[in-house]
């Protein structure tokens, strides 16, 4: 006689079989049967958040720092709609999430029942796929398929909507994992001919550059190792997108820093002037390309990506290699070694002029800023934070805005999966819950959320979660009392009309920390900054660090709206000379 399990039990049996150890969630009427089963499954720990958006971002932080899918469990109606921001965020940044939502009982669907919403309808455009479970006999297969879809191909969020009556109904359980070929839409679709062509381009290039993105990190730590090997064995310069930071060591001489709107002068100019661009797991996002007609006009472009729809979407490329980065890089290295042993030495002369040119751009020192002895410059705060934490294996999350860009520019990442930030969607409030998720996954590691005071208030309630689970996350707030990036754009584009970008009534973050039961620290001057940071690092509890920084500082360098890579604003002086006019003003 086969054993019969309730739908709720089947959910947990699937999670067990998928080796899920943590789920982030918030109970409610339509998921109560599932919550009732939690006690019978000891291998799965539930983290109670304070808002479903927090559950989503925490699951994202968990997923991005481990490479495993993040799981969240929320109720119907508002539970599901609150999770939508996090699902969209994960969709844009290719983060594998499995979201389980409760739904009103099957017979009430469509009646506008209490806490009913069309969850699968609402989340259809922000998930890779979603399912409404109408028959308990389908539940196990759907659950396993959900994990398969979330983690294969280009990763992303999926959602399984389970009506309450299905959670009570009984069925047999079958482990569908690895049972049959599931439709995760994985595309390893390239040939040795493509690789040979790439090697040919590499051997001919006089001004080459690697442009790498989050795909390298999503492909696993091995992909980052292979990337390093390839970059070293070619001697080519490399630049990275915001999401790709960490896949190549930032303190290496071949690394030109981040590219794009707030990227370095050398990275953007190299992108503009190169004759061979090798895009590895990036997607020619508009923050990267600048004005698309003048994007890298003279280069041959190679695009390595697992998602066929990313090829030729924004920028037409000369050679497309559709496949998993790890597998493509393995083949490339193998072919390179076979055909051109010791390539970096034999090719050194061919690209020496290029490196000379890059050094000239580098000498502009585009990340420099004007220091101050009275006020803490935000860049200085990040620099000091980096210097004082670089010997630890530190995980950094951020919110969205100026502080995020300064963190990307001035914090140097040497390992993948150490940098969690909301890039595609740009979700303010991402960093704090993400830090919760990262700390859950890495209880012994130092986890810092580099935050802005406006962003962090959007999900501040998750401090309560951090306190409940003794998660010693550090919330490092660069407090300039403004929505800094909004203020910067208003300064540059709207004649300094700072419409609604100043927060006139901020809470006292130190007292707030105390109210949450954690520790608050405030730094006001550059002189005391180091001591305060060290104080923060020595506390084994959650800390809110209120770093009062220069209120007027802008984030440079910057490619202004509607301009190509070679027309960057380097600092306040440029800002006056190259005023943004005309159509550029209408862009985001």
């Amino acid at each position, binding site marked *: 006689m086969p054993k019969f399990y309730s739908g709720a039990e089947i959910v947990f049996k699937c999670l067990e079989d998928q080796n899920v150890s943590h789920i982030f969630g918030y109970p409610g009427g339509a998921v109560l049967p599932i919550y009732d089963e939690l006690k019978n499954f000891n291998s799965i720990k539930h983290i109670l958040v304070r808002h479903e958006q927090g559950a989503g971002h925490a699951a994202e932080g968990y997923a991005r720092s481990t490479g495993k899918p993040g799981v969240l469990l929320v109720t119907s109606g508002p539970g599901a709609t609150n999770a939508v921001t996090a699902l969209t965020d994960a969709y844009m940044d290719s983060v594998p999430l499995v979201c389980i939502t409760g739904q009103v009982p099957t017979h009430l669907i469509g009646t506008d029942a209490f806490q009913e919403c069309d969850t699968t309808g609402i989340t*259809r*455009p922000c998930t890779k796929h979603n399912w409404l479970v109408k028959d308990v006999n389908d539940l196990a297969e759907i659950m396993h398929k959900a994990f398969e879809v979330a983690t294969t191909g280009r990763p992303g969020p999926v959602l399984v909507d389970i009506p309450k009556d299905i959670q009570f109904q009984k069925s047999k359980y079958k482990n569908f994992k690895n049972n049959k070929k599931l439709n995760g839409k994985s595309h390893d679709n390239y040939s040795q001919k493509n690789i040979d062509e790439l090697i040919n381009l590499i051997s001919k290039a006089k001004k080459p550059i690697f442009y790498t993105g989050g795909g390298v990190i999503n492909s696993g730590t091995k992909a980052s190792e292979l990337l390093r090997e390839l970059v070293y064995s070619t001697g080519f310069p490399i630049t990275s997108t915001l999401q790709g930071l960490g896949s190549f060591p930032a303190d290496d001489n071949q690394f030109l820093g981040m590219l794009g709107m707030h990227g370095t002068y050398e990275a953007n100019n190299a992108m503009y002037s190169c004759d061979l661009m090798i895009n590895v797991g990036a997607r020619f996002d508009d923050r990267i390309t600048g004005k*698309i*007609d003048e994007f890298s006009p003279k280069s041959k472009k190679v695009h390595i990506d697992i998602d*066929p729809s990313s090829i030729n979407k*924004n920028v037409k490329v000369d050679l497309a290699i559709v496949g998993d980065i790890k597998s493509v890089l393995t083949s490339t290295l193998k072919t390179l070694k076979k055909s051109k042993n010791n390539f970096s030495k034999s090719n050194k002369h061919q690209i020496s002029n290029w490196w000379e040119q890059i050094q000239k751009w580098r000498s502009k020192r585009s990340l420099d800023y004007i220091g101050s002895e009275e006020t803490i410059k935000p860049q200085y705060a990040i620099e000091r934070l980096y210097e004082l934490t670089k010997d630890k294996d530190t995980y950094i999350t951020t919110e969205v805005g100026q502080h995020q860009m300064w963190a990307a520019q001035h914090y140097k990442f040497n390992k993948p999966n150490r940098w969690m930030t909301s890039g595609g969607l740009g979700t303010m409030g991402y960093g704090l819950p993400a830090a919760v998720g990262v700390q859950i996954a890495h209880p012994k590691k130092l986890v810092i959320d580099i935050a802005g005071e406006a962003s962090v208030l959007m999900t501040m309630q998750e401090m309560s979660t951090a306190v409940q689970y003794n998660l010693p996350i550090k919330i490092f707030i660069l407090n300039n009392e403004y929505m800094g990036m909004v203020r910067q754009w208003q300064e540059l584009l709207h004649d300094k009309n700072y419409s609604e970008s100043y927060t006139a009534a901020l809470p006292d973050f130190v007292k707030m920390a105390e109210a949450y039961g954690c520790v608050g620290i405030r730094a006001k001057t550059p002189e005391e900054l180091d001591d305060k940071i060290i104080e923060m690092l020595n506390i084994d509890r959650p800390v809110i660090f209120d770093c009062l920084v220069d209120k007027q500082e802008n984030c440079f360098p910057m490619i202004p*709206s*509607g301009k190509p890579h070679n027309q960057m604003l380097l600092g306040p002086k440029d800002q006056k000379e190259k005023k943004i006019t005309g*159509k550029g003003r209408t*862009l985001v």
Partner: protein
Amino acid sequence: MANSKSAYSFAGKKQKPDTHIIVVWVDNEAGVLARVVGLFSGRGYNIESLAVAEVDQKQNISRITIVTTGTPQVVNQIKLQLKKLVPVHKVADFKREDKNVIFKEMALFKFVANNGKLNKAFEACKNFNPVILDKTNKSNVIQITALRREIDTMSKNLKKFGLVSVSRTGAVAMTRGSEIFK
């Protein structure tokens, strides 16, 4: 680059848009049409017409035929995005001018007029396989199959013969010859 998603492409080089017929084979499950149509509206692609029905009852496969206009780049994106949807099995794409593909739409015309006009109306339809589906002494319903533009013209020209109501399907497509699309 006409519908490029980049915020920077305001002065993009314009490619010429073409009319394409996209045929999609999907699992006939709840919400699948919404996924396909939502992809079009969400990404700003347009739909001129749409025809969908189950074609394989055993395997629950539906065939969706969509007529759309777009630049080569946009049409390519449509195909690649459609292929990413989990319930999608395969995607075919034909240009409207393609001589190897048959496109047909069906229309039902209702005429209310005297016998003379009704006869003239039937006469006018004779190039498009007209079938009289219903007839009374002051009205009839005629079914025709034709191309979209032909039906457009017909429904304009037939007004004078008492055309009062038009119902038409989206285009369906089939390749000529013995080959099938794999």
